[in-house]
């Protein structure tokens, strides 16, 4: 097709690095004119929307977006669809009501919930935990806090949550806050659940520096430092996400929709999440010592599976 598709993260962030390759692969595999990875200069909603707007002016015909803000992105999406330009939420969802065609990503609530459960399990079902979260003003953070609390509540008091520490999504702030936490409470707490990329890395490193294998940590994403932590026993596990798959499948589907070949089915087996009614799980899995070597293949399998069944499951095509 002659579609030009842009994949746009919320800002510069290592999580999205695989999107570049995913876009290139999709363009080649599906014969799309272009699938370009376009990064806003900073992690700021208005820079993201300005980027989207300028890409429209340059003739881009479909957008895969990680919303810089789950709510704030919607007005821009509304304008895109008004101009017959489809958009899909990738990696993270936009908050309903939204004109995003669908959301292919990690269910942030579920991922945090599963991660907390894994943490609790590694603590043998009891103890005190602390939650390390991203930006407080990001609506996803509240969802993650709720998810952690839900998992904790299900232990009927065996596990208690000491505190949520937020705004740890920048390196230096994370380092300061996590070390302050360990300084003050390392003997009181038994587990850390991290629901953002940066604090996972920083917590893994801090526990290693401290030489502490007693405190369990479950993080998110597969940064090398976290994986090394798992290997050496400082990290119990991490919730892998599937950035490559999100970019690859996202581009594939956007191409179909933008070409007018397919439309999104209303009654498809969507998953309902607190954020949206049109969610597709791009795959979350817990990486632990058992599958650290093989999880990438698992994710590839999941990607191939989603891609091959997508048309039938979620689209009506001519």
């Amino acid at each position, binding site marked *: 097709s002659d579609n030009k598709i842009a994949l746009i993260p919320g800002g*510069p962030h290592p999580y999205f690095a695989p999107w570049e390759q995913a876009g290139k692969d999709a363009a080649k595999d599906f014969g799309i004119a272009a699938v370009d*990875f*376009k*990064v806003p*200069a*900073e992690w*700021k*909603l*208005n820079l993201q929307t*300005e*980027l989207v*707007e*300028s*890409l*429209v*002016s*340059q*003739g881009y015909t479909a957008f895969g977006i990680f919303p810089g*803000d*789950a*709510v*704030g992105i*919607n*007005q821009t999406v*509304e*304008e895109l669809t*008004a*101009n017959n330009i489809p958009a899909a939420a990738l990696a993270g969802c936009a*908050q309903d*009501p939204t004109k995003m065609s669908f959301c292919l990503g990690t269910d942030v609530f579920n991922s945090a919930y599963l991660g907390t459960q894994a943490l609790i399990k590694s603590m043998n079902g009891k103890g005190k935990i602390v939650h390390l979260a991203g*930006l*407080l*003003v*990001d*609506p996803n*953070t*509240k969802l993650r806090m709720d998810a952690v609390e839900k998992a904790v509540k299900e232990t009927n008091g065996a596990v208690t949550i000491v505190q949520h520490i937020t705004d740890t999504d920048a390196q230096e702030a994370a380092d300061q806050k996590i070390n302050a936490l360990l300084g003050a409470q390392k003997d009181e707490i038994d587990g850390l659940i991290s629901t953002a990329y940066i604090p996972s890395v920083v917590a893994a490193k801090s526990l290693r520096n401290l030489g502490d294998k007693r405190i369990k940590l479950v993080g998110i994403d597969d940064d090398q430092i976290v994986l090394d932590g798992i290997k050496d026993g400082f990290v119990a596990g991490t919730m892998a996400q599937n950035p490559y798959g999100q970019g690859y499948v996202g581009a594939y589907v956007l191409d179909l929709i933008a070409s007018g070949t397919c439309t999104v089915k209303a009654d498809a087996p969507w998953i309902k999440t607190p954020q949206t009614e049109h969610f597709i799980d791009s795959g979350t899995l817990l990486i632990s010592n058992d599958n650290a070597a093989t999880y990438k293949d698992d994710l590839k399998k999941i990607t191939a599976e989603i891609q091959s069944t997508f048309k039938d499951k979620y689209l009506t095509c001519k």
Partner: protein
Amino acid sequence: MTLSVPSDSRARPSFLAEQSNLIGLAAIILLFWVLFTSLAPGFVSTFNLFALSRSLAVDVVIGFSTMVVLATGGMNLAIGSIGVCAVMASGYLMQTIGLPIPVAMALALLLGAFLGWLNGFVIVRSGVNSFIITLASASLFLGGMLILSKAQTFNALPPEIAAFGRMRWGFLSPLLFVALGLGAALIVLFRFTALGREILAAGANARAAELSGVPVGRAIIIAHTLSGALAASAGLMLVFRLGAAMPSIGQDWLLPSFLAPVLGGTLLAGGYVSVVGTILGAFLVTTIRSGLLVMQIGNFWLQLFLGLILLAAVMLDRYRSVYAERRSLGRRNSGRRA
């Protein structure tokens, strides 16, 4: 050949110099428009023009909010926090309480003005530098908002809100006209009212102003109140733009809020503002940013080019004005010799 007070035919050099600076800035903006239009045709597409007018509108008002405080020689680091308080208040009033849009908006503006007043009051009463007071109050206001709202977004606002944000007058957003309207009001304030003049006098030399009968404390408080109201206006414009009231608004306002007025000639030291300059300053930045994006200047390198072009623009303007001054002197001298 010193001129001694001939009564009427007095030249007004500083007035002319003022205009020539604005003309210079405008010329540079024009230059960029010609450049971007010829290099990237998408730049003048109606879609881009509309988008540009809308971001410009918000940046201009954010610039005004800082400008009115710069007039007093002070700073307001809390504009982002005041803006988001107004935003969340408007969301709450419309979505939870169900007040009509104009009433909710008016109350939100009032809240912004009140928070600004609070800044001004504490600054004047304590005699502590506005930088520190507003640094602290920025945290206080934002924190208060978070405590009350639990960072929950209001996204079920009346549909008219989003509709207005999408509305087009010609190919421009009506928000731009709101911004220009505010600009006109500020011109009247600073040029034609005693209050505005007093604010500037207080900013240029508080001591001299006080001894000339200017109630300096009051002028400073009013400037901060106005700054709060303008910050609230900018926030509400974003509510229209986004169709939602969210707690992350305002966090990135600080630099653009200084950039527009300072580029436009407003003095950080106080005592002089340029409303038109602030509009042009914001226009220059929006133009460069949008132009670079449309020209597809590669992703990650964009910031570098933004910085370089900004430098080039201010230097161009600087050399232009130095040159203009030299030339006017030269002309006078040759006239004298003849």
